[in-house]
């Protein structure tokens, strides 16, 4: 039970909030360390990401040699885009999963999480941010270094581009979390989230720009793809890196989707809490 030790409400509230931030920072740090227990898996992932980066780069080189200036990218931009998207696979968890939540809903272990005096969603978010940070170090940097060594990648044009790229990367992780959280929570209604996971995989790979840059798609398909949340995970941060998009517009787009998905996630959490059978007796 909380004791306020008689200070006034304001300072108590400040301390309380400070405590909450410390709590979620600690959870993020634990998420980081939790993933470091699987270092060899991360190395294997980094190796795969690098190899596929090289293969995809040659495909894009062929394409851009045939159609120079496609999608507003020159050849160097296109190869850079390719290695950036490879680097995003880990932190943005583009192949799905990354959250323990779906397994915990399926097994019923989520009951334990729901007893805690903390928000399930913020708890998961903090843990996921830790995961993303760890995978950024182990699965993003090495393949990018390989790409730079083999093909020579474009660098952001200056501090503004670097800063906006960093912000875009962070917002992309939040959008990715917001989406994956909803997918994981869907297990509460469908008893299992595997169907949703595979649907999510296809949507994410295609509409994020992972398969091909979204700027390539013409007409309404392109407009649609660029307006959907998945583009915040690859296309938008890559464009911020390459300086191809207005910074405020891009970050605003990502922030709007982050807020929307987190709000949906909060609604889904309370709906799940109200109606759902927690599995496993």
């Amino acid at each position, binding site marked *: *039970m909380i004791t306020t030790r008689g200070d006034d409400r304001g300072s108590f509230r400040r301390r309380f909030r400070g405590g909450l931030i410390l709590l979620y920072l600690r959870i993020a740090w634990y998420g980081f360390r939790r993933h470091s227990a699987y270092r060899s898996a991360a190395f294997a992932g980094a190796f795969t990401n690098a190899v596929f980066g090289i293969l995809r780069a040659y495909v894009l080189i062929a394409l851009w040699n045939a159609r120079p200036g496609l999608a507003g990218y020159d050849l160097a931009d296109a190869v850079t885009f390719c290695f950036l998207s490879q680097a995003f696979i880990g932190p943005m968890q583009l192949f799905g999963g990354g959250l323990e939540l779906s397994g915990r809903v399926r097994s019923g272990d989520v009951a*334990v999480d729901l007893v805690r005096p903390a928000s399930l969603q913020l708890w998961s978010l903090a843990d996921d941010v830790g995961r993303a940070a760890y995978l950024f170090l182990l699965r993003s940097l090495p393949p990018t270094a390989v790409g730079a060594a083999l093909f020579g990648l474009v660098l952001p044009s200056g501090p503004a581009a670097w800063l906006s790229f960093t912000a875009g990367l962070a917002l992309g992780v939040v959008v990715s979390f917001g989406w994956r959280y909803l997918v994981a929570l869907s297990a509460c209604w469908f008893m299992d989230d595997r169907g949703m996971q595979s649907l999510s995989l296809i949507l994410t790979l295609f509409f994020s720009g992972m398969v091909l840059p979204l700027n390539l798609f013409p007409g309404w398909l392109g407009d649609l793809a660029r307006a959907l949340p998945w583009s915040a995970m690859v296309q938008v941060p890559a464009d911020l890196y390459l300086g191809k998009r207005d910074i405020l517009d891009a970050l605003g787009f990502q922030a709007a989707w982050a807020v929307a998905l987190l709000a949906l996630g909060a609604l889904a959490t309370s709906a799940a809490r109200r109606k759902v059978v927690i599995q496993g007796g």
Partner: protein
Amino acid sequence: MIEVQEVGRSFTVGRRRDRRTVHAVRDLSFTVGAGEFVGYLGPNGAGKSTTIKMLTGILAPTTGRIEVAGLDPSRRRTALARRIGVVFGQRTTLWWDLPLRDSFELIRHLYKVDRVVFRERLEELSSLLGLGDFMATPVRQLSLGQRMRGDVTAALLHDPAVLVLDEPTIGLDVVSKAAMREFLSRRNAEHGTTVLLTTHDLGDIERLCRRVMLIDHGHLAFDGTLDDLRATVPEEKSIEDVVARLYTGQATTGA
């Protein structure tokens, strides 16, 4: 400390045409006073876990009223969490990949326990439950008995007034089981912690519980002392046989 009044909880299962309503708990009423140690028995599927989930605020009751430690669990779940400790024997609240100590440190932040108070409590629990040897071991490497001791510690670090235990001795060997029972009994006696215990191990009930409640088909089939329970089937000698009779509906008295 725990008040349950005419509580019911139903679930809708199945899809479309074969949709039906299952009453996991119906018209359940009981009261548990401060400092009591109550055993909560029932066959599989009788509604024990549903009751526990409602008491801890994970599930809201469909009908009726619940109050635990002065709070309505489903409405004040977060506030309630600071006043109760919960152990699900088959699940863990500990961080799988991290040393045991880290889970406790997180719980200190989660429940906002003062650092000095926390250290004292952890030392006490650690010496009583013998956690010293594996405090730095990742949870996934702990034996079941060690993990369970860790989980019980985690549930008590914020010094809750009510402790809800869902099969805390499941899978433990005789020595670990005895140690766990000894610990729980002392906790109840020395701290006055109210304990509600569900278990399929009647040894737990015999050694720990002054009062036994038995739930069957979602409602209370028995509430009384252990001796009263034995008296319901006087011709049976062992408590196992008595309870088996009650579970299969061959007892002479109900309620």
